[in-house]
């Protein structure tokens, strides 16, 4: 049984709970308004013209960055930088968690003229095999033969890793060749492509619906006592017990 340290003071009447809940609601509404304002600020960012012609390897052969927009009128391309280096056997576990969260939304955002894809450096055959295993249907392309991952600061050469690298807009030391992120591109009516936005690290936290749910429950993410925050995480087909009860019995 998980010990929650339940104290009887915590159990209150409906009216007392309501009072506490309404107080929190005021703060939650403030947060929602702040989040909307940030959305507005993002839209006001200047754009940078993309001058390189990136060619990716897709499920049906070569595709340029322009091809990925699929002709939608708003022509917004959201790229999830999925960590899967060429010599890895499986895609990153945390990125797989994020992919589980966005796999079903592609059809919806398409109807806002937004195209979503994932890009990794591993060869397309590895991406396709892993995608089949996980049962995902989003488009996943390999940037193994171009500079895309390096230019958008999610992959680092062995030489770069000897020093500090630029990630999440700061110099930091890392041992990992590939890190997660999101980049957004816009294509105008003449076919010019602009980079509008990139986010990394905890900047993509809010894109994971499972974490948004966990943030609403009594124990929250409950990661503080783990060796590292996502030590509990498995690929969705690799949890020892599908019901999730193992942890409970172990204590």
């Amino acid at each position, binding site marked *: 049984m998980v010990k929650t340290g339940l104290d009887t003071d915590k159990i209150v009447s409906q009216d007392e*709970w*309501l009072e506490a809940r309404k107080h929190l609601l005021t703060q939650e509404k403030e947060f929602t308004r702040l989040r909307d304002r940030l*959305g507005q600020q993002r839209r006001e960012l200047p754009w940078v013209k993309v001058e390189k012609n990136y060619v990716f390897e897709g499920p049906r052969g070569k595709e340029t960055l322009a091809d990925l927009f699929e002709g939608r009128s708003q022509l917004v391309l*959201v790229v999830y930088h999925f960590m899967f280096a060429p010599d890895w056997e499986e895609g990153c576990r945390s990125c797989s968690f994020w992919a589980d*969260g966005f796999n079903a939304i592609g059809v919806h955002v398409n109807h806002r003229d937004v195209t979503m894809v994932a890009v990794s450096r591993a060869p397309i055959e590895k991406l396709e095999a892993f995608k089949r295993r996980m049962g995902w249907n989003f488009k996943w392309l390999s940037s193994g033969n171009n500079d895309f991952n390096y230019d958008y600061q999610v992959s680092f050469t062995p030489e770069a890793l000897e020093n500090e690298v630029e990630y999440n807009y700061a110099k930091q030391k890392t041992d990992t060749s590939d890190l997660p992120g999101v980049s957004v591109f816009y294509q105008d009516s003449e076919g010019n492509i602009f*980079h509008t936005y990139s986010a990394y690290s*905890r900047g993509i936290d809010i894109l994971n619906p499972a974490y948004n749910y966990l943030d609403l429950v009594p124990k929250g993410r409950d990661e503080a006592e783990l060796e590292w925050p996502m030590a509990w995480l498995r690929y969705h087909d690799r949890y020892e017990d599908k019901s999730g009860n193992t942890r409970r019995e172990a204590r």
Partner: protein
Amino acid sequence: MTKHMTGTREEWLAARIELLEAEKELTRRSDELARRRQELPWVRVDKEYRCRGRRSRRMGWTFPWASSFGSDFNFDFNVSFTEEQQREGGIEYNYERGGHAMDAAAEIPQPVIQNAVMTGTDVATYTRERPGMSAFVLEDGIVYHTYSTYARGLDGLWGMYQWLDRAPRGRNETGVWWSRHDEYNKR
């Protein structure tokens, strides 16, 4: 050619880093709110609710989906309302009584009318149901209610909105644009 302001990589970076500070502040506030939610008191649930479960076929979903038909569950957690409450302006939703755009006295907004049609019902029946999320905890065999959220409190749980908030035109919506995932081609 785009009318949007364009800039060099350096100009973009300066603006982006300024925004990053605001984003980090939002992340910290989100963490702080999660902590406050954990500090909320709990209410013991004394009623015994009986729900019936079944798997959903058409949409291909695999989560457990239970019917609360015939119990007070939806009414007690403020997501279903009676005709009487609707008539008398007594709908208490998102911790506020009355004044909701979907209430009987209010002028019904166009999206609500569309949504009612899409669920195969009339507006009055449709608006007696509202979305929400509630959390419970089971401790020594006793169930406690810990949290409920409604309306835009659910915004963060709608995965696609958080992605769209990062696109150049954001949510870019004027009305109801979404469909059930297997119905887009029918429109």
